[in-house]
């Protein structure tokens, strides 16, 4: 029997080793880059969230000063807070009193928004605060893939 010719075996081994090293390195690089991309997304999300929270704070400040003014008007005109509030704001009955609903969005499509519900304090003698925050929630549209359809892999559509 003719002995096996082993010339060239080193090259094959080295090529294999190089391929393994390359795959290993590229896997590490890909993992690192996806990690970085996730971290960037998290930072961008937090940036947007705090920006939106800032807008909510402005809105709350403006509502509060409006309530201050309405309280003063009610006192001056001798009217009840209920009458003045219902004439000027879209208040909703809540428990024994009323609540006010606010929504602040990051864009016109409302892809990300914060909803706030305020319970109005109907006692004209309480000056420390005009409302209590009873609900505060942030909503965001689901992340959608575009132009990708996930079909049934076992029974694919004929068309």
């Amino acid at each position, binding site marked *: 029997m003719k002995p096996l010719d082993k*010339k*060239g075996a*080193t*090259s094959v081994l*080295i090529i294999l*080793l*190089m391929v393994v*090293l*390359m795959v*290993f*390195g*590229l896997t*590490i*690089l890909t*993992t*690192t*880059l996806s*990690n*970085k991309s996730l*971290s960037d997304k*998290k*930072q961008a999300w*937090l*940036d947007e969230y*705090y*920006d939106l*929270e*800032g*807008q909510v*704070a*402005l809105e*709350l*400040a*403006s509502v*509060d*000063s409006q309530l201050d003014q309405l309280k003063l008007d009610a006192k001056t005109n001798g009217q009840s807070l209920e009458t003045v509030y219902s004439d000027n704001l879209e208040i909703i009955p809540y428990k024994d009193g009323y609540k006010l609903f606010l929504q602040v969005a990051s864009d016109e499509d409302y892809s990300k928004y914060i909803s706030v519900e305020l319970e109005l304090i109907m006692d004209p003698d309480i*000056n*420390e*605060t*005009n*409302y209590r*925050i009873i609900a505060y929630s942030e909503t965001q549209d689901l992340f959608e893939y575009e132009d990708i359809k996930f079909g049934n892999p076992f029974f694919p559509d004929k068309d």
Partner: protein
Amino acid sequence: MNKKGFTLIEIIFSVAFLSVVSVVMLNLLVTSFQIENETDTMDVAIIHLSSEIETIKSQAINDDKTVYKYYNELWLESDEKDATFRLELHVKKNLSHDRGLYDIEGLIYHITNQEQILELETKHYYHVKE
């Protein structure tokens, strides 16, 4: 054809190829390690900064305030002299509203590299009046 010495040439070429690939791969690994390190730092910085912002929002504030915190390289709170990172939180009255509205600016500096690595800005309205 005389094939003596073929294996030696083969080995020399293999070692040369392997060296080139190894240099490229090592470079790739070092870059990956650096990126991973930066990402890690950023992730922890975000957690610390947002936690501080939320803490300041939960407190009763009636004047401008600045908070400094120092962290070592493991992100444990430390003295200024041992610190690698500095967290700054500036709470300033927003003059567009007579009271209660504050601008909050949070920053994280890498002291050793002398660079700002993170910045977050928001506003908060303290509706309970003093």
